[in-house]
């Protein structure tokens, strides 16, 4: 079965990271999926993202933390260009996705979003059956074969570790499920189109602690196959599940490093202030 032709791994991946900001020193042998270069973004006159340089590595969990309004969600939504839904958004700079510039208008958003899935803050299943929720993505992309759809639905629900809970009620409306289950349905819906990257925008902020824990376990599972970027305002969560952490403040990246380093030995005093709870 034909799969996405993997772009060549650039040998000088590390070199492509602009080293202007002292913040970026998290180097790795892993391949870079997303590479932001001097990214700036304005909502009308508001300068929401300032000179963002950030590399996201393959099959890792990258957490983005920072106080509300720091631009972390905006950055996440720029990666699949959902940010364009806000009227009056302007961007400069580049985001390279596997060496293609996604902010270029010739890069189709529909194409981008089939490769970069997204899970939202509040669970937002469609008011349809569980089955239809999962099959929605494959169907719009032209998969009609019932047998393949059945397989995709099962595989995705298993992938989101909710198969056992819903396998007997696939025809029931997804609204009958609990919030935590709905969120895992949304993750399964996202897995169904087999993306490379999953963006998660505070996926557990609307959930109770038990459901949160399940999602966190799931994220650990998923990172074997997917690159995951998660925005969270819960620092314990970032520390628990992520490999790397970026700290945003007022639209700027203050620090980006291995999660251990950020939480044990941050380079910037503002990072330290934030993770020790002095503001935010």
């Amino acid at each position, binding site marked *: *079965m034909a799969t996405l032709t993997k772009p060549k791994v650039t040998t000088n991946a590390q070199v492509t990271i602009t080293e202007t900001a002292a913040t970026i020193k998290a180097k790795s042998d892993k391949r870079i999926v997303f590479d932001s270069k001097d990214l700036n973004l304005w909502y009308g006159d508001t300068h929401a993202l300032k000179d963002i340089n950030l590399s996201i590595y393959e099959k890792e969990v990258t957490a983005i933390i920072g106080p509300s309004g720091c631009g972390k969600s905006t950055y996440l939504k720029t990666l699949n260009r959902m940010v364009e839904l806000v009227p009056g958004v302007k961007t400069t700079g580049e985001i390279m996705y596997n060496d293609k510039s996604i902010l270029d208008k010739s890069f189709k958003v529909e194409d981008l979003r089939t490769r970069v899935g997204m899970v939202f803050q509040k669970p937002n299943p469609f008011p349809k059956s569980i089955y239809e929720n999962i099959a929605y993505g494959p169907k719009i992309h032209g998969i009609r074969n019932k047998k393949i759809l059945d*397989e995709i639905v099962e595989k995705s629900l298993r992938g989101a570790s909710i198969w056992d809970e819903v396998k007997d009620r696939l025809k029931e409306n997804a609204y009958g499920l609990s919030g935590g289950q709905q969120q895992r349905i949304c993750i399964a819906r996202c897995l169904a189109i087999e993306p490379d990257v999953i963006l998660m925008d505070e996926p557990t902020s609307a959930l109770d602690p038990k459901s949160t824990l399940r999602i966190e376990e799931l994220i650990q599972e998923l990172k074997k196959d997917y690159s995951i970027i998660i925005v969270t305002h819960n620092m314990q969560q970032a520390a628990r599940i992520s490999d790397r952490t970026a700290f945003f403040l007022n639209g700027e990246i203050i620090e980006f490093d291995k999660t251990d380093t950020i939480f044990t030995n941050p380079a910037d005093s503002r990072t330290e202030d934030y993770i020790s709870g002095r503001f935010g």
Partner: protein
Amino acid sequence: MKHVNREQVQQKMNGRILKNNILKTIFFLSTLFGLVVLAILIIRVIMQGVSWINMDFLTNRLSTSPEQAGIMGAILGTFWLMVVVIPVTLILGVGTAIYLELYAKKGRFHSFVQTNIANLAGVPSIVYGILGMTLFVRALEFGNIVLAGGLTMSLLVLPIIIVASQEAIRAVPQHLSEASYGMGATKWQTVKNIVLPAALPGILTGSILSLSRAIGETAPLVVLGIPALLIPFPTGLFDKFTVLPMQVYYWTIDSSLVAEYANLAAATIIVLLVLLFILNATAIFIRNKFQKRY
């Protein structure tokens, strides 16, 4: 194993995007369709009728001769109709709204009245004409005078002003009336001095919109038996009368006999539309001026 074949997805992508763009254009053209018809209608009416509008046309009596015919009688009739409709709908409409929003207990009776008002709004206008003919013209023996027409029209537009007034009252912030109660004011004092003044712009807007509906409506008056005859100018509520839309109606159907009547109808439509435009502009002005007060 991958189930999603990227190449196939890629191949279909362009077609899907193209389909989206084509249909977007179709949706846009559909939106324009109504507006284009509106433009044609207005241009057509103006071209046909504007040269017939002059002082004589506005001040003359009706006449079978197109050159001498004027619409003063219809203008006066429309004026007297408004004299009935405005106070009746304001008292009944606002009163009902106050009762439903501030006095009635929310329960079965309340929702019954509410459903009833919604259904009245959907009753065809001609049925109100039959009610008016049976009740006012025949049973109460008013004959087809201004009062009968005005009361019929008032009942017709009542649901509009009730709903608008209810929304206006509901939009008055709770803390205003609480402040009033807090100072020991009685319920009616609060309603009269606090709630109604705050809701007034919304009520006026609704009132004007219902009035413009009453002015443009024809069917009920046809049923009341408003004559096409040459009648003296109405001078009060108990005179026989005609109104602008009735004049349009008679001139339109008689235009197959005398072609110029169509031009007279067009000229009358222009006067009617200008009148409605002024009313609606006033309503929009009031709405915008008082919108952001709290």
